[in-house]
Structure formats: structure tokens, C-alpha cells
């Protein structure tokens, strides 16, 4: 293992391509959301494939894509999340794999057959600005590691070269169209008929999405009283409904409080698969009890840990 330095030049970076790590939990009381990847499992997998800690800083690629050139050194990367079209010097690669770039090599990631967000981890230490102890970029303010721009240079220290290999894409990393929800906290502000409609009908993702959230199209599910509620804490996965009956699901960079009623909250583990859907995709909601949600969360965590342990042992 040789310790050395690599430099990456960003040739093209679309909007919302940012530096991310596991985020900054515990600061919502100061108006700061967790941020971190849209698909949190993708960054964990990419890092684990390289023997890194799960939440180490990497690059999150949006549907707008990314093109890089290695201008110095040798750099091993891991790519996971979504089914992107990945190529090295014009030669197609697998969407999920460990790849080593030599000086002068170009790596391109574009939207492929499925998925919306992809994570790149590096076998080394990516230099990045931190804010409140984390690299995770808060999109609205640009605080943290920040969005990538064409012409920008990134430095990776203590690079390790690892053998190239595919990374298996587990079934639980595919897009998730059927979302488990716990009803509430404000389901009582909606009529029984509206709640039934919410749970029985199909919604579609719209093109109005960013790292803060995802607006839905579908049946009108306006609350009975279109009054706001006193602003209250929000979580990733909250399904909030505006007075005119339009639902949105909050994601990584969500506002920390809001006054729109929430008809339901999506199981946190399901939000990664939700992030990998595309505008126009159909989704539906299934109500589960809080006890069932805890049981599912534990079951999913066990399956994920099992997968990660296998990935790390290769």
C-alpha cells in the first residue's frame, strides 16, 4: 500500500452534484437538517467496498451527471447507487463497481436505465470544507463541502490502490414504489375519505424535486380545514399537504419546521428507495403501526448489515 496524493479535475457537473458524508444529526433544534446523501445506503456501500468508514466524505451525483479527469496520481473509487451509465475514457463500465483511474483517465456518470442518485467514494481522504463537523452539503445555503463546479479541482490524500471488482446491487437498493407509512401526526385534520384515498390511490412523482423534497401529483388530499398549524418539527419522510391538497415528501435537506399538516410519515428506510425513483413514476402508500415500523426497521437493518459484512470481507 503506497500513500500518495491524487488530483481530480471536474470537467462537467450538473446541478445538485455535491460533496456529502453521513451528515450532521442532532442540530434540527437550530434549524439545521441532517443533509447527507439522498440514498444513504449508496454512500455506505461505496465506502464499505473500499474499507472506509461508512460515512466518509464522497461525491453524490444527481440526475444531471458528472464528468471527471484524474490529473495527478492513481485513484481507486467505488461507485454505488442507481443504475447510472458509467464510462472510463468512453468505455462502458458496470454501474456499481470498484474502479482505479490512472493519470489522464476520464470518468463519466450519466443517468442510465434506472435511478436518480449515485455515490462515489474514494480510497483515500477527500479534502473538503466542513460545516458543523460535517462535509455534507446543505443545498440551500451551500454550507459544507459544497456543490461541484466545472473547472474545480479536488484533492485526495493518502490514496490506496485496490483491485477493480464489481459491487453487487442488492434488491433493497432498487427504487421503492410501495412506501410504508405511519399515519399522522395530523391525519385527524383529514376526512376519513381523504385518508382512504391517500392509502388506496396511486400518486406520481413530479419534476418538482430537489434535495429538500419531492412534490407529488395525484388525487387531491386537501385537509378539511385549510388552516395552518403552529410551525412544528419535521423529519425526512414527512408527507406534508398544502392547503390546496398537494402532497410533498421531505428529503435530505428538508426545512426543519413547517406549518403544513402531515397526513403521514414514510418509514425512514423506505426513503432511500424513494430517492431512486424518477419523475412520472407511480407510488402508493401502505399504513403500518409504529410497532410494525420498528420491527421492519430492525429487519431491514439486519439485512443491510449482512450485505455490508459480505462486501467488506471480499
Amino acid at each position: 500500500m503506497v500513500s500518495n496524493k491524487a488530483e481530480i479535475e471536474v470537467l462537467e457537473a450538473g446541478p445538485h452534484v455535491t460533496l456529502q458524508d453521513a451528515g450532521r444529526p442532532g442540530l434540527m433544534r437550530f434549524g439545521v437538517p441532517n443533509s447527507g446523501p439522498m440514498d444513504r445506503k449508496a454512500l455506505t456501500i461505496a465506502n464499505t467496498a473500499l474499507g472506509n468508514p461508512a460515512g466518509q466524505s464522497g461525491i453524490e451525483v444527481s440526475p444531471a451527471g458528472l464528468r471527471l479527469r484524474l490529473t495527478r496520481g492513481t485513484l481507486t473509487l467505488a461507485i454505488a447507487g442507481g443504475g447510472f451509465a458509467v464510462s472510463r475514457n468512453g468505455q462502458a463500465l458496470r454501474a456499481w463497481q470498484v474502479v482505479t483511474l490512472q493519470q489522464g483517465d476520464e470518468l463519466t456518470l450519466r443517468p442510465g436505465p434506472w435511478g436518480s442518485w449515485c455515490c462515489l467514494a474514494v480510497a483515500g481522504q477527500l479534502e473538503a470544507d466542513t460545516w458543523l463537523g460535517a462535509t455534507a452539503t446543505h443545498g440551500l445555503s451551500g454550507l459544507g463541502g459544497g456543490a461541484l463546479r466545472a473547472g474545480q479541482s479536488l484533492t485526495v490524500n493518502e490514496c490506496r490502490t485496490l483491485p477493480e471488482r464489481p459491487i453487487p446491487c442488492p434488491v433493497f437498493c432498487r427504487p421503492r414504489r410501495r412506501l410504508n407509512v405511519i399515519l399522522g401526526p395530523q391525519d385527524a385534520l383529514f376526512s376519513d375519505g381523504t385518508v382512504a384515498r391517500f392509502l388506496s390511490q396511486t400518486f406520481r412523482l413530479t419534476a418538482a424535486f430537489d434535495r429538500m423534497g419531492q412534490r407529488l401529483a395525484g388525487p387531491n388530499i386537501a385537509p378539511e380545514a385549510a388552516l395552518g398549524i403552529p410551525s412544528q418539527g419535521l423529519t425526512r419522510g414527512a408527507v406534508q399537504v398544502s392547503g390546496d391538497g398537494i402532497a410533498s415528501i421531505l428529503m435530505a435537506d428538508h426545512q426543519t419546521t413547517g406549518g403544513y399538516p402531515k397526513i403521514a410519515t414514510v418509514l425512514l428506510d423506505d426513503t432511500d428507495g424513494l430517492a431512486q425513483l424518477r419523475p412520472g413514476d407511480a407510488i402508493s402508500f401502505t399504513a403500518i403501526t409504529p410497532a410494525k415500523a420498528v420491527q421492519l426497521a430492525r429487519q431491514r437493518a439486519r439485512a443491510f448489515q449482512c450485505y455490508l459484512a459480505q462486501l467488506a470481507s471480499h
Partner: protein
Amino acid sequence: MLEFATAIDKEAHRAVLALDAALAAQPFAGFIEAVPAFVTLLVRFDPLVTDRATVEQHLKTLNSAALETVLAGNRHEVSVVYDGSDLAEVARQCGLSEAEVARCHQSGTYEVAMYGFAPGYAYLSGLPAPLAIDRKPNAVRNVPAGSVIIAGGMCLITTLTMPTGWWRIGRTDAQVLTGNPDRPFAFAVGDKIQFNEAKNGL
């Protein structure tokens, strides 16, 4: 999500802050964070460590003890230059002169009711009644950081350049996001704020 009232209410807010303080002093295994707001406390827990019934039981034992908690809160002074782009319109709507708006704004004792929306956005309750006007019908873009804005009976010091529908009555160099990693936010929820006019600028 614990709800103490359905509308903004001073007593309910004190109960939120008391429970928040009690929980911070005595967290349960698997506690992630609590988010105090006007009448609610959002409590997040790790489902791999605990479950809702266990958390509710823990909060019940705290709830009675919390009533004894004394909430002091630190005091902060904030200097303001009252030259905001909306000052004239606020004065017109309130039936006051611009100088009276400035004096009235300084006469309130404000309390950090909650942080919300965006990093460092501290909602300050205690805006004097003559200045209680509704927000603008439409948000205005690119309101600079450091703006002192009012609406709906609240005051706020902006920390980022952002759109807002609140009225900009002045500006301050007070930094709510301090940039100091040891103490990144100037105010804690429950702190008291006093505004005074920076007569010779900032």
C-alpha cells in the same frame, strides 16, 4: 411528536421547553434529538435501540418532574440600524412614523421561541402588538443575511440570503451563525433578546 396545544399558547410553550430541558438532562437509550417548537416537541429515537412505547413511558416519568424545571435563559443585546427597505410600508400599515416603529421594536423583550426553516433562523416571540402585521402576499427574493424582519407577531434575524415574505425593517451585524465550532449558534431556545438602535451605524 408531543403536542401541548393546537394553537400558539404561552403556557404550552413553557411546557415544551421544560420537557425539552428535562429530556436533555435525562435522555433515554436510543435518543437521537428533540426539536422544540411553539407548542410541540418532536422527539426522534433510534428504532434499532428502542421503540415508541418505551420512549412514551420515559417521557411520562419526565413530564411530571419537568414542571419543576426553572427556565432562566441567557440575555443577548442586538444592535440594529433601522433603515430596512420595508420600514416605510410597515410604518404606514401600523399608523406610526418610521422612528416610532424603531422605538416600538426596541421596546419589546423577545424570547427565542424556536429555530426553524433554515440554519440559524431563530423565531423571536414578543414583538409589541402595534407591529403585529401579516406577512407579505408574496415572498421577495434575495433578502440579504443580517436583515431584521417581522411578520405575524414574530421577529427574526436572517442568516442566509433567502427569499422571505416578512417585512425588512433593519439590519444588524449580530451573527446568529457564529462560525465558532465550540458554540456555533449564538442563541439557545428560551434565551431573551433585547434590540437597541445603532445610532452611529454598525
